[in-house]
């Protein structure tokens, strides 16, 4: 496995090769990724990603906040799937507290998470295609994404930084007309996926740019810690939604798309099929949405309804206490992982029994996936680096935290 280890600093001076600095302001690095490339003509000899340009110390900030105040911070880790991060964090805290969440809240979480996955995959598809040279797909994808963002705005008041989930449930009942709007979207979205596929899947230029490019074997992918479509594109059949279900995912029927080839096209196919599976899950969630409360029955943890707070003394006291001193979480530690659009998103939370987390660690899927880049690109052409970076779907906010 020696070839998987990084080469030390790249130094110029060898006869044939030169060092090329790609990023951190390069349009196809999806943010502020810097890649150091040693190239021999058009061939990449060695490459080294350099990260940290977006590091904001979110893990440190979390240690100074109450448990409920961390939820908005989790949005800002990954701006393409804030609800997935919300979910992972609240699930971890709920596991620490031993809370049971009512079915309606769980189903709503699933519904919104799948919409988030579609949203994230649409941005990925649009920008990935744009990187490789297909302009139209970008406009099509952002057209559908706009509708999802409007749905998020309707339900949480925010298009991107939703902060909609709370420890113990969700923030508010979805507004009137919400389910109809989602049903509309679920109705026409599969046709739109056909549209994207018409433009790309059989397109000879697309196939030449993606098939056989940036290959990675299943062994290398596992050894390097890749997860999500990056791993499934290499033929490893694992999806945490199916294999280690959380938030009622075991009650939904869906297939886990995998491809065997391990190239850019395989990862593309995995994600496009996931778009179809996700909209299927959204439809199942709409059809089977249970009735009942949206918050757990845990007075010291979950904020009381506004109505009760204004009329009942006890609720007012709880409200005051949660806002001013938070809620204490029993001593312990949990690692909760969810299947984010990019792979395994994990929260490791350590509690020392106070109202603030002692340590919050985010296991970011992109952070590990990024390590696969040298394996994919070394020995290949420089132009393929752009395709490879797009195919692992990086979000630098999540890598640098």
């Amino acid at each position: 496995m020696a070839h998987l280890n990084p080469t030390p600093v790249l130094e110029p001076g060898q006869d044939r090769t030169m060092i090329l600095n790609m990023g951190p302001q390069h349009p196809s690095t999806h943010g502020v990724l810097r890649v150091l490339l040693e190239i021999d003509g058009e061939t990449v000899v060695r490459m080294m990603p350099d990260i940290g340009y977006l590091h904001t110390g979110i893990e440190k900030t979390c240690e100074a906040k109450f448990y409920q105040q961390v939820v908005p911070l989790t949005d800002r880790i990954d701006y393409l799937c804030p609800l997935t991060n919300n979910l992972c964090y609240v699930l971890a805290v709920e596991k620490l507290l031993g809370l049971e969440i009512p079915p309606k809240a769980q189903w709503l979480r699933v519904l919104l998470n799948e919409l988030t996955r579609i949203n994230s995959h649409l941005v990925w598809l649009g920008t990935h295609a744009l990187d490789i040279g297909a302009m139209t797909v970008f406009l099509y994808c952002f057209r559908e994404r706009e509708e999802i963002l409007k749905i998020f705005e309707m339900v949480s008041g925010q298009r991107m930084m939703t902060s909609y989930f709370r420890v113990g449930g969700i923030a508010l009942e979805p507004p009137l007309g919400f389910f109809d709007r989602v049903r509309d979207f679920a109705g026409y979205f599969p046709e739109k996926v056909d549209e994207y596929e018409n433009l790309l899947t059989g397109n000879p230029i697309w196939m030449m740019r993606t098939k056989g490019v940036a290959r990675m074997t299943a062994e290398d992918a596992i050894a390097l810690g890749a997860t999500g479509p990056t791993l499934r594109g290499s033929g490893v059949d694992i999806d945490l939604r199916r294999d280690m279900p959380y938030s009622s995912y075991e009650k939904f029927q869906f297939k886990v798309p995998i491809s065997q080839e391990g190239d850019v096209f395989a990862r593309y196919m995995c994600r496009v099929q996931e778009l179809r599976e996700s909209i299927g899950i959204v439809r199942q969630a709409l059809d089977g949405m249970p009735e009942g409360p949206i918050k757990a029955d845990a007075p010291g943890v979950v904020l009381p309804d506004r109505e009760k707070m204004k009329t009942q003394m006890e609720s007012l006291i709880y409200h005051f206490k949660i806002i001013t001193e938070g809620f204490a979480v029993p001593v312990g530690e949990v690692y909760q992982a969810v299947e984010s659009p990019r792979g395994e998103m994990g929260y490791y939370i350590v509690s020392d029994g106070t109202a603030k987390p002692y340590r919050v660690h985010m296991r970011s899927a992109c952070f590990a996936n990024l390590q696969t880049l040298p394996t994919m690109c070394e020995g290949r052409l420089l132009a393929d680096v752009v395709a490879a970076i797009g195919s692992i779907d990086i979000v630098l906010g999540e890598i640098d935290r």
Partner: protein
Amino acid sequence: MPLAPAITDLDQLKNHPAVARVVGWKPEAVTGVKFDRDEMTIFVDRAYIREACIALKDDPACPFNFLSDVTCVDWYPAEPRFEVVYHLLSIPKKERVRLKVHLNSASPAIESITSVWPGANYFEREVFDLFGVRFTGHPYLRRILMPEDWEGHPLRKDYPVEGYR
């Protein structure tokens, strides 16, 4: 749903595949176990961490072939101060296990597991960067998130949240 108390008795947990494997391989490597909130934790002696990872990875019954995460917790001012935490996943059996190693503040160093999983590379660099724990045998132990010339290790508990000004 009240929380069940944590089980820390080794005899009761012998049937868990990861515990059975590590205890069967080298009993002196295990300094303790904990089963809490459906999660298994094995405390491993600092000297054996790399070999324990190999033993778990090559377990024929339940291979923990995937390294999910490596991180660290700082228990300042208590000693042993650092706890390096490894999360392993068995892709065939869908099992998780957490390995923990205690390190003193005097010389926080531990053997790197990049030879077992090359994917540990970035995670160990992150722990080195933010906690100052050294990983011996790491191929490229340099800061990863903070600037190269940064002083101090921000996630240590004696490092102020707002930084030094």
